[in-house]
């Protein structure tokens, strides 16, 4: 009898201290409603988001904001200094630099975001399938991933687009071929870890189908790391895209694109270095936006090593 009496308070104290340990047992970050608020509270992430929103708006509104047609040449007015008509001057063909930068953002930024998102969807889907199916399917996908991962992403894109020939469509194909692997590998790993979480095993035991478990229980866990990956990867994609255009393998003249503008400015860079500096700065700022956001996101999701 005395055993019961003595044991009761100890048990309730243990329960109380377990409740006190709620920090360790917090739900996955993605489930916390405050993720967005936390993100907005992180100065780094906020700055990154701000840069991307501003650049995105400028790109979307380029046709209305641009003072001139970005491909209209004016050979009598080449390398013009800044003026009221041309706030940033003109390039080697007399085209308005500001208008080209704005339209260039449309090509660079919007392509990067669209392509980055498409890669995310494909990669995540493959990762989920691989992680869930297991067995032979998983084995085969892993072999393919191993082969593709032997190459740095940029090199794979370079040789694929090199073989297919330059142009937007080929570039997109090359990025898709090379890009999905990174997501697939991470997502597969997350699925394998999550599959052994008690709540997922419980869902299995209750007889829920794999598809339902994937959507209800696994996606929330996969969501946060994948968002970080998307942010950082899309920043890299933007740089790679510009690099390929710079090498003449991406967007072809006269279309305005930041990397291509740098490439065109090479010829006259001693005479007009500003034509190189403007697009260079804009690319850097855009990539910085992605990196700031990604870095902030990572801190919010994994504050351990802040």
């Amino acid at each position: 009898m005395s055993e019961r009496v003595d044991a009761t308070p100890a048990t309730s104290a243990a329960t109380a201290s377990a409740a006190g340990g709620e920090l360790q047992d917090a739900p996955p970050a993605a489930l916390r409603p405050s993720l967005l608020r936390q993100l907005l509270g992180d100065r780094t992430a906020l700055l990154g988001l701000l840069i991307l929103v501003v650049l995105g708006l400028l790109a979307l509104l380029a046709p209305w904001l641009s003072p001139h047609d970005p491909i209209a040449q004016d050979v009598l007015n080449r390398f013009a200094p800044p003026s009221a008509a041309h706030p940033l001057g003109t390039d080697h063909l007399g085209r308005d630099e500001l208008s080209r930068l704005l339209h260039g953002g449309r090509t660079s930024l919007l392509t990067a975001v669209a392509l980055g998102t498409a890669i995310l969807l494909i990669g995540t889907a493959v990762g989920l399938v691989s992680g869930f199916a297991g067995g032979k399917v998983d084995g085969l996908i892993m072999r393919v991933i191993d082969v593709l991962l032997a190459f740095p992403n940029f090199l794979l894109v370079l040789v694929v687009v090199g073989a297919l020939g330059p142009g937007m469509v080929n570039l997109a194909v090359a990025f898709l071929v090379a890009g999905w692997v990174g997501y697939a590998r991470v997502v597969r790993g997350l699925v394998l870890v999550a599959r052994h979480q008690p709540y997922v095993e419980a869902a299995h035991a209750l007889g829920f189908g794999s598809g339902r478990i994937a959507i209800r229980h696994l996606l929330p866990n996969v969501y946060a790391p994948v968002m970080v990956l998307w942010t950082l990867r899309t920043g890299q994609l933007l740089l790679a895209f510009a690099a390929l255009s710079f090498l003449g393998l991406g967007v072809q003249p006269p279309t305005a694109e930041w990397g291509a503008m740098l490439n065109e400015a090479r010829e006259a860079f001693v005479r007009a270095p500003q034509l190189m500096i403007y697009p260079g700065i804009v690319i850097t700022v855009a990539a910085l936006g992605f990196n700031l956001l990604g870095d902030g996101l990572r801190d919010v999701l994994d504050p351990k090593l802040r």
Partner: protein
Amino acid sequence: MTRPLLDVRDLAVTFPTDSGPIHAVHRMSFSIGSGERVGIVGESGAGKSVAALAITRLLAPSARLSGQVALDGTDLLQLPRSQLRHVRGERIGMVFQDPVTCLSPRMSVGDQLVEAIRAHRGVPRRAARDRALDLLRSVGIPDPVLWAKEYPHRLSGGMAQRVMIAMAISCDPELLIADEPTTALDVTIEAQIIDLLVELSEERGTAVMLITHDLALLARFAERILVTYAGSIVEQGTVGTLYGRPSHPYTWGLMQSVTGVNEQRRRRLTAIRGAPPSARAIPPGCAFHPRCPYVQEVCRREVPELMVHGGDDHASACHFAGQLARPEELREVRP
């Protein structure tokens, strides 16, 4: 009375956090004489390790320290950081728990000893190496030449702790602080390590402060015992008085949770109820009152002072020290 080697007065340690300060150590006062072996006992979270680290100021820079820690009259808390390193290792040696993780993973055992010696003694490398081998021998490591070349991950916990002890005594410190040195070691190894500490203390006249949560362990080690609870000392006395006439209800609880093999079953039943308080929210009045079987109105209001009430400096921080029934009688009172 001669000046004690280490005199800790009103030591308090606070960690500021986003969710309010944590009071890890609360006005702790005690002293250790030259060559004396003192045991500090308490449950985890009682602030005993924090106090040990505070003495040599090894806590994170965010920790707020107050009070005095006088080593031979010099207040270590006021010492400039540059002087501190001449105390650490040279006058106070330290040994911690998890010895394998306390040794640098990419440096051989011998090199780590040499490093410790040369940090304070301007001896040539060769002489330091000879001394390192002597030290390894003196802590009972067979074949020191061989083991000196090994890397920490190859050592067992007991071996690693011997190495740590060798390192701690490498510059003949006046005081050795051992913070739970045998936690997670086998019982037989534990006994060996404790015996080694006693032996070294007697041979070299080194004072040892042993921190543990195991009161029974101190029987074979300490001359004097300090009992800590919620960041304060609640009772102190010589081994004899403390084991013979404990006067704080918390100490009784600790004594009863000490398990003798044949009595294990019966005694577990009377172990202390409840859990120690969180350092964020220490109860008002006597910190032990929520768990105390004899709690009175005054215990909820007033903090009891640590007061000498018996021979041999036996002191207890209980409002009813010396007035309460002995634990043996307790069992009859509370069926």
